[in-house]
């Protein structure tokens, strides 16, 4: 069964901390995505990557960066966490064949205090 694994289910961090959210997929997918999900706002795209060492900004990249050093791993970095970054973060991957949907990870609920 294909999998997208996010390293933490729940995370509590302090304001100003640097936060790393890790995502690993075992499907050899080329494309990976980071979303945040907030009540009433749906899924908003933060960053995405179509290849190793490649990244593109999504709709809400401010305050975030990403790293993709290996095909299977896509990391989301909060350079200096703020309370308005408290949210559910979802990683997804796809094979880019325009045939299949995205496979999502289980999500990381991040609370910044």
């Amino acid at each position, binding site marked *: 069964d294909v999998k997208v694994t996010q390293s933490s289910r729940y995370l509590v961090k302090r304001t100003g901390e640097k936060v790393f959210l890790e995502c690993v997929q075992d499907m050899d997918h080329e494309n990976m995505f980071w979303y945040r999900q907030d009540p*009433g*706002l*749906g*899924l908003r795209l933060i960053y995405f990557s179509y290849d190793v060492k490649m990244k593109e900004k*999504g709709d809400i990249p401010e305050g975030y960066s990403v790293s993709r050093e290996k095909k299977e791993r896509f990391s989301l970095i909060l350079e200096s966490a703020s309370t308005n970054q408290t949210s559910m973060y*979802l990683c997804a991957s796809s094979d880019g064949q325009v045939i*299949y*949907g*995205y496979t999502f990870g*289980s999500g990381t609920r991040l609370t910044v205090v």
Partner: protein
Amino acid sequence: GQQVMQIPQYQHVQEGEDFTTYCNSSTTLSNIQWYKQRPGGHPVFLIQLVKSGEVKKQKRLTFQFGEAKKNSSLHITATQTTDVGTYFCAGRKMNRDDKIIFGKGTRLHILP
């Protein structure tokens, strides 16, 4: 920018009643996908529609893609408690890059 609007935002139905959610895009789409997210879970891919006017069925779920490829609907017949969750549509742009735009979802609540 391109938007995908989804209505209604919430829907309460009695168990056994039908349910429909609608999705509209401001521009023509290459294809549209539907996802289901159970409470406390993550979005799970249900189906993709590609052709103009396409209709696909999965048991009690019927998915339609409009003739102009700008709108879509998901209809559930005779809802069951297992149908509870949020249903998202997601449209892919005509340039065929892999980025899709999600609607805000319709949260379905079933009354026993």
